[in-house]
Each structure stands twice: as structure tokens, then as C-alpha cells.
């Protein structure tokens, strides 16, 4: 019933092994264990059972993902299961169930737009299942490419760490949010279901299965965003769902158009699609897939669902932003990047991404809410990934994958820190984070690591930006992207540095009492911090061991043998810089700090030991200054509407170009 490809020795033993090759078992564990855990978590109420369950499941998932990644890095894994019709039917039922849940909730809360969209989606899927697919032929069921390996590791390690973190977080959450009904069973079940759907999305080779997983992630994010059931949460949840339903509809349309294409091979297989020689007939499905990716990755006209999603408990934000949901969007785009690279659809996709990067980086300047800054920075980075995917050359794909990795680790770390800090200092406003390094040394240190990882040399994100720059410069219309990147990264520097500065500030008021972190939060935060540092140090290994082999397997259309990229001198210089920084850090800890600590200069006023100045009524007061937010230029009011219009036009042009089938000629 089940057979493994590329296995042709020792027939008897092989028959047993090939019934259930370890790779298949690993894949099945990744797909099914989170689902089982979700069911159990939904059933059992006691905290102890939940903690144990989450712990055990996390260990299993992390172990299995590492095992699968190791196997797949040694040799590409592709598993074919025959007689998969019943799975198809099962997934169809899942699709229907999702649609009915969304329909039901839309009726309950009287939301018209989600209602209409889910009806459309329902009709499209039913039509597709009943009349569309009849030429069934065996296709590979699971493909584990190096891109999937990256995603599996991100979902498996970061995703589960976030779930572990949530154990401690949710305790505090319900102590802080009085009035929100405690529904931890529901919460944790959904979190694990989400992970399972993500695994399905990155491991399947069948577009119908990917579509189903896609819809599951939409549903899970919808339910998780609405967790607290406050009016704001409900509104934002519905906004997320209608935007993602547009994505789902576009995905379904893409599949519908793919089926219509007359081809000797089954185009529902991602594998066949990527190797399809005549890309010019694929432009319509590609354009729809691009829109689907844009919605899920919260690119510009659809960005508000992700910024609205921060009403959810922080672990949900962390999960949405770093390892699931938005990464599903960019995964799909990066997956089809080699096809995008040959079409004008790709160029416009890249333009939308680059535009989003520019605008949301500016928007991030105007925010003082830490979670919102993170949200905008996520969208900006996804924009950069989208731009790389749209360009789709070898260097661009390399940049995109690096960005995915570094963004996932650094952003997850930052969200976890912000969540924990919020519970300790009672605010998520960056203005209240002054002197955090003194107040909460561990969390603040981790936050510093995360922020540095997001934008400073010689850390991860900057390296990816560097590769992206090189990729843009060698791509068609590259000068446009380079110019956008130049200004966008200036914004990036602005909003990150002012946050970083706040953390290092001297405290001009007595510190509050210390509050201990939950052990689960501590473990996740520390492991995540180590992961960020590890990725930053190990990026050459990631490039040579994971990304280059992937590029060699997909052979993008214009494969330009890069002149060593930065493998020679640059690596040495980056290393040198890292060493300098290391010495500085050591110096900071060991160096002499002899000298007098005196109050700061406050324009010549009398200042007391705590840095407060003598006010005119003879009372000592704290001198407060706040960061710049440039509301006038970068505020949501100034930027959002114009950018919706511009990005909307870009999407329409992209679809038109898709229907016209315009190709880039070389």
C-alpha cells in the first residue's frame, strides 16, 4: 500500500521497512501527534495534566522535526502513498466543516462580509471537489525539500516553545484580564491544531491538501484572535477571517485554473508544477496564488488583520508572527518563486512586497505600543521576503529563506519577551521600558539580543538584507527595489534604535520589587535567545548546508552563478566585527568601572541622587522626555489610506498581467 521511492536493495527486509519507512513515520507523527494532543488538551481540565501533555508533545515534536530534518538534509525525502482518495474525502469534509464554522459564527455575530465570502469559498470548493478533479493519478504525497526542512524546524522548535511559554503566560493572563472567561482547554487545543496544520502545509505535495491546511490555519487564527471575546477581539477576528477568506478564495481559484490547463502531468502536484516547462500558461494561477500569499502574509492592503491580531494573548501573536500563519503565506510564495521569476506577475508581487516594506517600516516609527511595533516590523520583513520571492532569482530565494529563518527566531523571542515584560511591569508601551536592563535583567538582555538580531551588523537580519540587496541589484528592475530598500532600512534603524535606547536608559526612579518569571516562560525565552545567537553565528553553515543544495535542486530560471557572494573576504570581516563586539561585551562585564556615578545634566537645575530635578515649588520631580514618533509623517492616519490605494492598484495590475500572460523575455 505504501511505497518509498529510491529504495531498491534487499527485498524482504525492505518490504517491511518500506511499508513504514522512518521518514513517513516522522511525517505522520508531525501531522497526527499535535492533533491527538489537541484532542486530549480539549478534554482534560487540570493544569497538571495540561502541563505534562504539552511538555511531552513538545519533546516529541521537537525530536521528530529534528530527525526529519536530518533525514531530509542527507537525501531529499519523497514519500508516495497509494489509494489516497479517502484522505482527499476526509480533507474535503474538513474544508466543509471549516466553512460551516465560519458561516455559523458570522451569522451569530451578524457579520455580512465574512458570511458572503465563506459562502463563495464553500461553493468554489464543492464545485472543485465534485466536478473538478477526476483525472486522479498517483502523485508524490509528501515532499520534504530543504525549504520544507527550514519550515519544519521553525514550526517544530519555535512553535512548540511558544506553546510551552503559553503555559506560564496564560496563568498570568487570566490574573490580569479579569472578566475574560478562562478557556485554556480551547486555547491550547487550537494552538496544537495550528501546528499540525502548518506541518501539513509545508510537507504535502498535493495542492488540494495544502489548500485544506491553509483553511485550517485561517480558522485557528480566527478563533485564537477572538479568544477573549471582547468586542474589539471579535471585530479583529472577523477582519482577520474575511481577509484570509479572500486568500482562500484566490487559492481555490488558482487550483480551479490549474485543473483546466491541459497537461500530461498532474499539475496539482507542487513538484510537477515547479518542473512544468511552459510557465506562460501558468500565469493566471500564479497571480491568484500570489494574492493568496499576500493576504496570509498580511501584505499591504491586507495588513490590518495582523496589526489587529495583537488583541489576542501574546503567545498567539508570537505564533502568528514567527512560525505559523504569516510564514505559511511567504512559504507558498517562496515555494513558487522559481515560477514567479519568469513572469511579470512576479515583478509586481515583488513591487507590492517592497512597497509594504517601505510603508510599514515608516508606520512602525509612529507606534509606541511594543506589540504594534513588532507587528509592523513583521509585515515589513514579510514584505522584503515577498519582494525576494517575486524576483525569484537564486540570490533572491537565498535572501528570502535567510529572512524567514532569522525573522522567525528573533521575532518569536521579542514577542515572548514583550509578553512577559507586560505582565511584570504592567505595560507594553515602549516609553515605560526605560531602564529595563536594571529592572528585569534577563528579559531585557533577551530583548536586546532580539532587537540586535533584527537590524544590526553583524547579526542575522542584516546579513539577509545584504543578500537581498545583492539579489535586487542583479535582477530586472532591480534599481527600483534597491532604492526602496535604501529608504526602508533607514526607517528600520530609526524605530529599532529608539526602542533599544530605552532599554539601556538609567533609571531615574526607585525600582519596583522583583517578580519571578514562570519556569516555562524562562525556559522558552532562554532557549529562544540561544537559538537567535546560534542562527547568527551559524549562518554560513545554513547557507552552504541547507540553502545552496535547495537552490541546486530547483534551478531557478536565471540562475546566476554568484561570485562567491560573501563567502570570502566578507565572512572574514563579519567574523572580525563579531570578535570586536565580543571583546566589547567582555569589556563591559570585566572592564574597570571606577569613577563617580553622578546625576545627569539637567540644564543646571539642582538634581538629587536619583536624577530628579528640583522643581520651582521645592519638590523633586522626574524629568521625562519621550521618543520621537513623527506622527505627522509616519502616523497611521497619514499613511494607511494612500498605501491601500497604491497597493490595491498594484494587485489589480498584477492580476491583469496574469490574465494577459506576460512573460519576461531573456
Amino acid at each position, binding site marked *: 500500500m505504501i511505497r518509498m521511492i529510491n529504495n531498491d536493495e534487499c527485498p524482504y527486509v525492505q518490504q517491511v521497512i518500506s511499508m513504514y519507512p522512518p521518514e513517513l513515520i516522522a511525517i505522520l507523527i508531525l501531522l497526527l501527534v499535535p492533533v491527538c494532543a489537541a484532542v486530549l488538551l480539549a478534554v482534560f481540565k487540570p493544569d497538571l495534566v495540561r502541563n505534562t501533555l504539552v511538555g511531552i508533545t513538545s519533546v516529541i515534536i521537537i525530536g521528530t522535526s529534528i530527525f526529519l530534518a536530518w533525514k531530509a538534509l542527507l537525501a531529499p525525502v519523497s514519500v508516495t502513498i497509494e489509494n489516497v482518495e479517502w484522505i482527499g474525502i476526509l480533507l474535503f469534509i474538513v474544508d466543509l466543516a471549516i466553512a460551516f464554522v465560519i458561516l455559523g459564527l458570522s451569522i451569530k455575530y451578524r457579520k455580512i462580509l465574512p458570511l458572503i465570502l465563506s459562502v463563495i469559498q464553500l461553493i468554489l470548493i464543492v464545485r472543485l471537489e465534485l466536478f473538478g478533479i477526476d483525472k486522479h493519478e498517483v502523485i508524490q504525497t509528501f515532499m520534504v525539500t530543504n525549504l520544507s526542512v527550514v519550515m519544519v524546524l521553525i514550526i517544530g522548535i519555535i512553535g512548540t516553545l511558544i506553546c510551552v511559554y503559553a503555559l506560564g503566560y496564560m496563568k498570568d493572563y487570566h490574573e490580569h484580564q479579569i472578566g475574560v472567561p478562562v478557556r485554556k482547554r480551547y486555547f491550547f487545543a487550537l494552538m496544537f491544531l495550528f501546528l499540525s496544520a502548518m506541518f501539513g502545509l509545508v510537507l504535502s505535495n498535493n495542492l488540494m491538501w495544502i489548500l485544506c491546511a491553509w483553511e485550517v490555519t485561517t480558522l485557528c487564527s480566527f478563533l485564537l484572535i477572538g479568544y477573549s471575546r471582547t468586542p474589539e477581539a471579535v471585530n479583529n477576528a472577523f477582519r482577520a477571517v474575511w481577509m484570509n477568506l479572500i486568500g482562500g478564495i484566490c487559492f481555490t481559484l488558482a487550483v480551479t485554473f490549474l485543473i483546466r490547463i491541459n497537461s500530461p502531468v498532474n499539475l496539482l502536484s507542487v513538484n510537477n508544477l515547479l518542473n512544468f516547462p511552459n510557465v506562460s500558461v501558468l500565469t493566471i494561477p500564479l497571480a491568484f496564488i500570489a494574492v493568496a500569499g499576500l493576504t496570509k502574509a498580511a501584505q499591504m492592503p491586507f495588513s490590518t488583520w495582523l496589526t489587529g491580531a495583537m488583541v489576542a494573548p501574546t503567545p498567539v501573536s508570537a505564533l502568528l508572527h514567527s512560525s505559523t500563519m504569516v510564514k505559511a503565506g511567504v512559504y507558498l510564495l517562496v515555494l513558487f518563486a522559481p515560477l514567479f521569476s519568469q513572469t511579470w506577475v512576479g515583478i509586481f508581487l515583488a513591487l507590492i512586497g517592497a512597497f509594504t516594506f517601505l510603508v510599514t517600516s515608516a508606520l512602525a516609527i509612529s507606534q509606541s505600543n511594543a506589540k504594534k511595533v513588532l507587528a509592523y516590523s513583521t509585515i515589513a520583513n514579510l514584505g522584503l521576503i515577498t519582494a525576494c520571492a517575486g524576483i525569484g532569482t537564486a540570490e533572491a530565494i537565498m535572501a528570502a529563506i535567510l529572512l524567514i529563518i532569522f525573522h522567525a527566531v528573533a521575532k518569536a523571542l521579542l514577542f515572548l519577551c514583550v509578553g512577559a515584560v507586560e505582565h511584570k511591569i504592567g505595560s507594553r508601551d515602549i516609553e515605560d521600558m*526605560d*531602564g529595563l536592563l536594571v529592572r528585569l535583567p534577563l528579559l531585557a538582555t533577551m530583548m536586546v539580543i532580539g532587537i540586535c538580531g533584527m537590524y*544590526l*551588523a*553583524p547579526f542575522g537580519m*542584516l546579513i539577509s538584507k*545584504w543578500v537581498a*540587496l*545583492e539579489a535586487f*541589484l542583479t535582477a530586472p*528592475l*532591480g*534599481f*527600483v527595489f*534597491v*532604492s526602496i*530598500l*535604501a*529608504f526602508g*532600512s*533607514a*526607517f528600520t*534603524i*530609526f524605530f529599532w*534604535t*529608539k526602542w*533599544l*535606547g*530605552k532599554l*539601556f*536608559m*538609567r*533609571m*531615574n526612579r526607585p525600582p519596583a520589587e522583583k517578580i519571578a518569571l514562570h519556569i516555562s516562560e524562562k525556559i522558552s525565552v532562554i532557549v529562544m535567545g540561544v537559538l537567535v545567537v546560534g542562527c547568527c553565528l551559524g549562518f554560513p553553515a545554513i547557507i552552504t548546508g541547507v540553502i545552496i543544495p535547495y537552490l541546486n535542486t530547483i534551478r531557478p530560471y536565471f540562475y546566476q552563478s554568484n*561570485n562567491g557572494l*560573501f563567502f570570502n*573576504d*566578507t565572512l572574514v*570581516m563579519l567574523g572580525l*566585527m563579531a570578535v570586536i*563586539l565580543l571583546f*566589547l561585551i567582555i*569589556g*563591559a562585564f570585566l*572592564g574597570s*568601572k571606577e*569613577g*563617580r*556615578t*553622578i*546625576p*545627569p*545634566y*539637567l*540644564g543646571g537645575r539642582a538634581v538629587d541622587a536619583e*536624577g530628579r530635578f528640583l522643581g520651582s515649588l521645592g519638590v523633586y520631580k522626574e*524629568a521625562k*522626555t519621550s*521618543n*520621537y514618533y513623527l506622527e505627522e509623517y509616519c502616523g497611521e492616519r497619514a499613511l494607511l489610506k494612500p498605501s491601500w490605494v497604491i497597493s490595491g492598484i498594484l494587485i489589480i495590475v498584477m492580476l491583469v498581467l496574469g490574465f494577459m500572460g506576460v512573460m519576461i523575455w531573456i
Partner: protein
Amino acid sequence: MDIMFLVGAVLFLILAPIFGGLLTGCDRVLTARFQSRVGPPFLQPFYDVAKLWHKEKAFSNPVEIIFTTAYLVLIAFSGAMLATGGNFLFVVFSLTLAHTFLILAAYAANAPFSHIGAERELLSLMILEPILILLAAGCFMVTGSFETYNMLILGIPGIVFLPGVFIAFIAVLTLILRKSPFDISTSHHAHQELVKGVTSSLSGRSLAKVEIAHWYEMIIFLSMILLFFAGYPVISAIVIILVFLLEIIIDNVFPRVTWKMTIKSLWLITLVLGVGNIVILGILGGMFL
């Protein structure tokens, strides 16, 4: 070849602060003459630093020691990279990191003057970044790599390809040499709104380190002009001197430019001349390069 690079780096590390200090002294004398003052002695910057170095060690937040050290070390490092014909993009990122440390040092004091100084220094960093990246992109489009070395051995000087980028770069230089506007810079004018802004909470050795770093920085940015005039050392020297004098004149002619005006005008120049230049180069690039 490697030995030569090493020699270049060492020479830069030793000579740059000397030249930088001399230029600063020259600047202060000239500026004073512009304002009908006599001004300090020519070697005053060196006296200042020597005196600062022996001052009492006092700070409002001890982390500033490491931050100012990091600023100095990284500025010197990026200068050495540039002097050895290294990767320009790398120099840019390294400079950014260095400036970030200076800004963090200003933040650390948590005092109004230094905080606003830090914010405005951050703004000037934000103004500087695009044109440097555009310059890097321009180098790449002309030579096919980010190595400044390739820019220096070009047959045709870079200014032919990058005139817009050059003008935008010179415009931004006003800001980076801490000349104008008066409410961002930490120049030696007495009328400074923020009491020297970013350095207002620094004293003693920390301040001395910032001063030395500033000398390095001046040489780094002035020597970037060389990229545009490869193979013509005499012209380069003349241009550098002219630019330096021009900056002093601009500083004294527009003493009341505010930061908002600066951002708008400099980004407009960067956008029109810098981006315009890159776009035209990109379009024509396929034809003659």
C-alpha cells in the same frame, strides 16, 4: 597584496586622527574668522582631547564607557575597511553600528538634553543611510561588486556615472560633519539649542573618545569622495578641499536651519538626485556597461 592592505589599514588608523584633528582645528579657525573672531589656536582640538583624557572619571550611567569605546573602535574599524579597499556595504553597516553605539551612550544618561540629542542624532543617521546604500548600489552597478577597490581602479572616474549620487552625498555631508542644522549638530558653536545634544551627558574620557571618533569619521566621509574620482589624485584632493570649505560656508550661511527642514530637503535631494541617478543608470546600464 595582503601585506599592503594591512599597511594601509595601520596607516589609516594612525594618520586619520592626526589629519582629522588638524582639519577640525582649521575648521574652527576658519569659522571664527567668518564670524569676525580670532578663534582658538590651530592645535586646539588636540589640547582639548588631552585635557579631557585626564579629567575625573564621572558619568551618569556607567554603560556609557563601553558604548563610547565601541563607537570609537567601530568607527576606526570601518575606516580601516574603507582604507583597504574593502566592501563598501560592509563599511556602511559598520558605520551604522558605530553610530548606534553613540546614540545608545546618549540614551543611557536618561536626561532631557542628551535624550533629545540622541533622537536627533538618530534622525541624522536615518538621513545618511539611504544615500550611502544608494552609493553602494551605484558602485555595484558600475563595477559589478561592492569592493571599493574596484571603484578606485576604474578607467573612467565614477563621477561620470554617479553625478546625482555625488551631489546628494555632498549635501548630506553637511549633516554628517555635524555642521548644520543647529538643532542636531554637536558643532563647536555657542548657540547650540541642545547644549551639544548627543554628547551633553558625556564628560572626561568618554567625551574624548567621541571627539577622536569624530576625527576618524571626518576623514572617512571625506575620503569617500575619492570613490568618485578614481585615478585622478590631484583632482580628488582639490575636490575634497573645496567640499570641506563649502561645508564651512554652508554652515555659516544657513545657521538657523531646523531638523525638520533638514530631513525634508536632504531626503528630497537624495530622492531626486540619488534615486534618479540610480534609476537612469539602471535603465542605461544594459546599454553601455
